C-alpha cells in the first residue's frame, strides 16, 4: 500500500492503482472518456489530466500513470495529486476545446442528448464559447450491423468500442483506420459486427457516435420510467434496467452486477424490445371447429373447468416453459397437486436433470464470478458463446489472463478463445477422463446439448466423474457446472417440478394418446402431438398457442413481478415494468382464477401471499440475490452412478442464438440479426 495525497486528502492505495483510481478512492471525480474500468487503458482522450507533485512537472493523464510512478518528497512526504489546481482547470478546458473542435453541435437532434458524457463534461469542465472558426471535419457514417447506428462526425476517438470488441467480445470487429485527423472508427470494410455482445458498444460510446439502431429517434432519456429488473433471455439472469414510457417498453440496458454480468448484456437481452409488442395474446381464445376464436375470461375458464372435470387425474399433465417465474410454476404445481396428477415437467427439451441427484447436480456450482478462479476448463456439449454470451465473455476474460487450458467435447465452434478439441461425443470424454492429468480447480461446463438426449443421465454422470477425478472438486471449489439455457429451469427444478411417482416426462406427455389434458405454462419449444386438449397460458402467439385449444393470456417477463433462479442457483427478483396488454393477466393470477373456476381456489389471493406460501415450503427463495450452495458430496454420489453413454456426437442446445424463445421469435430486430448471422442478408451498400 502506498500513501498519496489527493487534493490534500491522504489515501492509502495499492501501488499499482492508477492515479485515477486513487482519486476515486479519495472521493474525487476525474472526468474521462477513454478510460473504462473493464477495458485496457488507452490514455488517448487526455480528459483525465491532473497535476502531480513527485512526478513530471506537466499535466499527467491520471488513467495511465500509476501511484508507484510518483516519488515521495525529499523529506518522505507522500506524493501529491491535484485535481482542482489552476493548471488542471486550464488543461481540462484546453482538452475539452480540442475535443469540441470537430464535434458537431447537433445535441438537439442527437439521441445521446441528456445522457451524453461529452455534453455533461463540457458543461462542467469546458468553456462557454468556441474560438474555432474553421471548417469542422466530416466523416462518412459506417454500416457496422443492424443493432448499432453510427454518426461518425460525433466520434471523439476514445476507442472504447475497439477495445471492447477486441478484449471482451473477442471478435475484433472494430478498428481505427487512417491516422491523425483522418482517423476513422469502423468495422472491416462496412461488414457487420459478428459478436453477440455488440450492442454494448453503444453503451460504451461516451458520445452519440454509436447509438442503438432500433431505438433511433424514439425518446429522450428523461422521459423514461426506469425499472431495475432481471433478464430472462438466457439462464444467466443478467441485471438489466428496463426503460418504459407510458405503457410501452422502450429499451433495455445492462445494470452493473459484478457477480453475474459485470456490465454487459447480450444482444438478445437488449434488443427483443419489439418482440414484447408483437404477436401478443391480449385476450382469451377458444378453439372451435378447428379455429381459435376470441372469448371472454369467463367462457375460457369455464371451458377449461369442464374439460378438467371430465378428465381423470392420471390423464392430465402440466408443462412449464423457459420463461416462467418461480411463483407461477409453484402455483401450477399446487394446482397439479390439487388435481392429483403426477405428470409434471419443466424440462421441455428433455434434459436429464433431476432434483433427486441433489441441487448441486443441476447448478453452475463454480458460480459465474468463480470462473475467474478456475485453473482449467472442460466444456462438454455446450457452446457457451451461443448459450450465454456474457458468461462466455467471462471465460474469455479468464483465458486472457493466461495459464488456462480449455478442452472441449462437442461441436467445434468459434468461442472467441482457444481450446483443445477432444472429440464430438461421450467416448472422447471418457477417454479424456481416463488419460488426462488432473488440473487445479477444474471447471466442468456441461451444456444442455449433452443432457437433452436419451443418454443425458450418463453424460451428466461422466461430467461428474470428470469433475471428481480431474480436479474439479476440492476444498472450497466445486467446478461441476451445468450451463442452463432456460431462465425458468433452475427455479422449477428447485420446486421439484418433475414427474412424480409413475408420472410422465415432457417428451412422453407430448406423445399422441399419452394424455387428454395438458396445462402448458409457456412451453413453446416442445411439439405437442395431436390428441390432448391443451390449455396454453402464455404471452406470445407462438408454437404453444398455435397448438392450444384454450388460450389464457399471460404476462411477459417485463409485465410481472417474480423470482427467477439463474444457472448458478442465485435467486433474483424481477419487477413489473408495464402492465400486460389488453385482458392478459399475470400468470399466477390466471392460475389462481383457473383454480377458482375448478371450484377449489388455491390458498392465496395476492402475490405476497403466494410468496409467503412459497417460502414456507422452499425457504431458500427468501434469500434474494444469494446462492444456496449445492454440496460437493452430491457430485461425488452422482459420479458413482453407472454410466453407459451412446456414441452419438453432442449437438449444441442452441442452433440459432436469436430465436430461442417466443419473445425473440416475435422480434423483427432478432429476425434481422438472425438473417445476418446466417449470411443471407445482403450487406449494406457502401
Amino acid at each position, binding site marked *: 500500500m502506498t500513501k498519496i495525497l489527493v487534493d490534500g486528502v491522504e489515501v492509502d492505495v495499492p501501488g499499482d492503482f492508477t492515479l485515477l483510481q486513487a482519486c476515486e478512492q479519495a472521493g474525487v471525480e476525474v472526468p474521462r472518456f477513454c478510460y473504462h474500468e473493464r477495458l485496457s487503458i488507452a490514455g488517448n482522450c487526455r480528459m483525465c489530466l491532473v497535476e502531480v507533485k513527485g512526478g513530471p512537472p506537466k499535466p499527467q493523464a491520471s488513467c495511465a500513470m500509476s501511484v508507484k510512478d510518483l516519488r515521495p518528497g525529499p523529506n518522505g512526504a507522500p506524493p501529491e495529486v491535484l485535481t482542482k489546481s489552476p493548471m488542471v482547470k486550464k488543461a481540462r478546458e484546453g482538452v475539452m476545446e480540442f475535443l469540441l473542435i470537430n464535434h458537431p453541435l447537433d445535441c438537439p437532434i442527437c439521441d445521446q442528448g441528456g445522457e451524453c458524457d461529452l455534453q455533461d463534461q463540457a458543461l462542467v469542465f469546458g468553456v462557454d464559447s468556441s474560438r474555432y472558426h474553421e471548417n469542422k471535419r466530416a466523416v462518412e457514417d459506417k454500416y457496422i450491423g443492424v443493432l448499432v447506428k453510427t454518426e461518425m462526425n460525433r466520434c471523439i476517438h476514445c476507442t472504447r468500442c475497439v477495445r471492447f470488441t477486441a478484449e471482451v467480445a473477442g471478435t475484433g470487429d472494430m*478498428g481505427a*483506420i487512417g491516422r491523425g485527423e483522418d482517423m476513422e472508427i469502423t468495422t472491416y470494410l462496412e461488414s457487420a459486427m459478428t459478436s453477440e455482445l455488440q450492442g454494448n458498444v453503444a453503451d460504451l460510446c461516451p458520445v452519440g457516435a454509436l447509438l442503438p439502431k432500433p431505438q433511433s429517434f424514439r425518446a429522450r432519456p428523461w422521459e423514461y420510467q426506469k425499472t431495475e429488473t432481471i433478464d430472462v433471455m438466457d439462464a444467466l439472469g443478467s441485471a438489466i434496467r428496463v426503460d418504459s414510457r407510458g405503457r410501452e417498453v422502450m429499451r433495455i440496458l445492462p445494470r452493473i452486477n459484478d457477480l453475474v454480468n459485470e456490465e454487459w448484456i447480450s444482444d438478445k437481452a437488449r434488443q427483443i424490445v419489439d418482440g414484447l409488442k408483437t404477436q401478443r395474446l391480449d385476450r382469451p381464445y377458444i378453439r372451435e371447429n378447428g379455429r381459435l376464436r376470441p372469448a371472454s375470461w369467463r367462457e375460457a375458464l369455464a371451458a377449461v373447468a369442464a374439460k378438467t372435470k371430465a378428465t381423470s387425474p392420471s390423464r392430465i399433465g402440466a408443462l412449464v416453459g423457459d420463461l416462467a417465474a418461480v411463483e407461477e410454476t409453484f402455483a401450477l404445481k399446487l394446482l397439479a397437486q390439487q388435481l392429483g396428477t403426477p405428470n409434471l415437467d419443466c424440462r421441455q427439451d428433455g434434459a436429464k436433470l433431476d432434483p433427486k441427484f441433489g441441487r448441486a447436480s443441476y447448478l453452475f456450482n463454480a458460480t459465474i464470478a468463480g470462473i475467474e478462479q478456475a485453473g482449467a476448463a472442460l466444456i462438454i456439449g455446450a457452446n457457451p458463446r451461443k448459450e450465454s454470451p456474457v458468461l462466455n465473455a467471462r471465460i474469455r476474460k479468464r483465458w486472457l489472463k493466461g495459464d488456462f487450458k480449455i478442452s472441449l467435447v462437442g461441436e467445434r465452434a468459434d468461442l472467441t478463445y482457444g481450446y483443445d478439441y477432444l472429440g464430438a461425443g461421450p467416448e472422447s470424454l471418457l477417454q479424456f477422463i481416463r488419460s488426462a492429468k488432473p488440473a487445479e480447480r477444474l471447471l466442468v461446463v456441461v451444456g444442455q446439448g449433452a443432457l437433452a438426449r436419451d443418454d443425458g443421465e450418463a453424460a451428466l454422470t461422466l461430467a461428474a466423474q470428470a469433475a471428481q477425478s480431474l480436479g474439479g472438486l476440492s476444498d472450497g471449489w466445486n467446478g461441476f457446472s451445468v450451463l442452463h439455457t432456460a431462465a425458468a429451469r433452475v427455479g422449477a427444478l428447485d420446486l421439484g417440478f418433475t414427474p412424480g411417482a409413475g408420472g410422465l416426462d415432457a417428451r412422453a406427455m407430448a406423445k399422441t394418446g399419452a394424455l387428454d389434458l395438458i396445462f402448458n405454462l409457456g412451453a413453446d419449444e416442445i411439439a405437442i402431438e395431436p390428441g390432448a386438449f391443451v390449455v396454453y397460458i402464455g404471452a406470445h402467439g407462438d408454437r404453444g398457442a398455435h397448438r392450444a385449444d384454450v388460450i389464457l393470456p399471460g404476462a411477459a417477463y417485463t409485465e410481472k413481478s417474480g423470482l427467477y433462479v439463474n444457472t448458478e442457483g442465485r435467486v433474483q427478483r424481477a419487477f413489473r415494468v408495464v402492465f400486460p396488454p389488453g385482458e392478459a393477466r399475470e400468470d399466477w393470477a390466471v392460475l389462481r382464477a383457473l383454480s377458482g373456476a375448478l371450484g377449489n381456489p388455491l390458498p392465496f389471493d395476492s402475490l405476497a401471499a403466494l410468496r409467503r406460501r412459497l417460502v414456507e415450503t422452499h425457504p431458500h427463495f427468501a434469500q434474494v440475490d444469494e446462492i444456496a450452495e449445492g454440496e460437493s458430496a452430491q457430485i461425488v454420489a452422482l459420479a458413482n452412478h453407472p454410466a453407459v453413454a451412446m456414441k452419438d456426437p453432442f449437438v449444441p442446445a442452441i442452433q440459432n442464438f436469436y430465436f430461442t424463445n417466443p419473445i425473440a421469435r416475435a422480434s423483427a430486430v432478432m429476425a434481422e440479426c438472425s438473417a445476418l448471422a446466417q449470411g443471407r442478408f445482403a450487406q449494406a451498400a457502401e
Partner: protein
Amino acid sequence: MSTRRLAEDQPASFEFTPENKAWLETQIAKYPDGRQASMVVPALWQAQKQNDNWLPQAAIEKVADALGMAKIRVLEIATFYSMFNLEPVGKYFIQLCGTTPCLLAGSDEIIEVLQRRVGPQRRVTDDGLFSWIEVECLGACCNAPMVQINDDYYEDLTAENFEKLLDNLAAGRPVKIGSQIGRVSSEPVGKLTSLTSFYGDGAK
C-alpha cells in the same frame, strides 16, 4: 494527407509468389508463438513490392490470414502508414516533397512540371509509367527541392533537369540518383561559406 480508402477496382485474388511465400514462412518462424502479428509491416511491404507497388484488398486479407490477425487490424496498419499505396501507382511512383524548405527552394516549379506531364495527383499515366503524389518532408531539405521516385531520392531539381530526368526514365535510359547538379551528398553547392579555416588559423 487525406482520408485513405482502398481502390475501387480490386483484383479478384492475391497470391504470394513461391519465393515470397518461403520468405514469409522463414520470417514468421522468427517470432515467438502468439506474437506473429509483429510481422505485419514487413509482410505488407513484401506484398506491396510484389504487386507493382500497391496493396490490394486481397493482399491485406492474405496477410491477415497468414498472421492470424483480424482483417481490420491489418487494414488499420495499411491505412495508417502512407508508405502503403492503396491504389495502383505508375511504374515510376513520384513522391514530391512540398514542405516549406522545398517550397522555398522552388518545388512549385516541379509541381507544375508534374501536372503538365503526368497529370493530377494519384492518377497513373496512360502508358502506366508515372504517377505522383505530394508528401510531407522527406528529410532532404539541404538538397531541396527533391522528389522520391520509387526507392531513390532525386535532389537539387529544377524544371529543366527534372524534365530531362522524366524523359530519361520514360525512355528507359540510365539516370543519376541523388543530386542532379553534381554535388556530393549535401555538400555546399558553391564554395565553402563557413568553416573556411581550421580553428585557430583565423585568430590574430
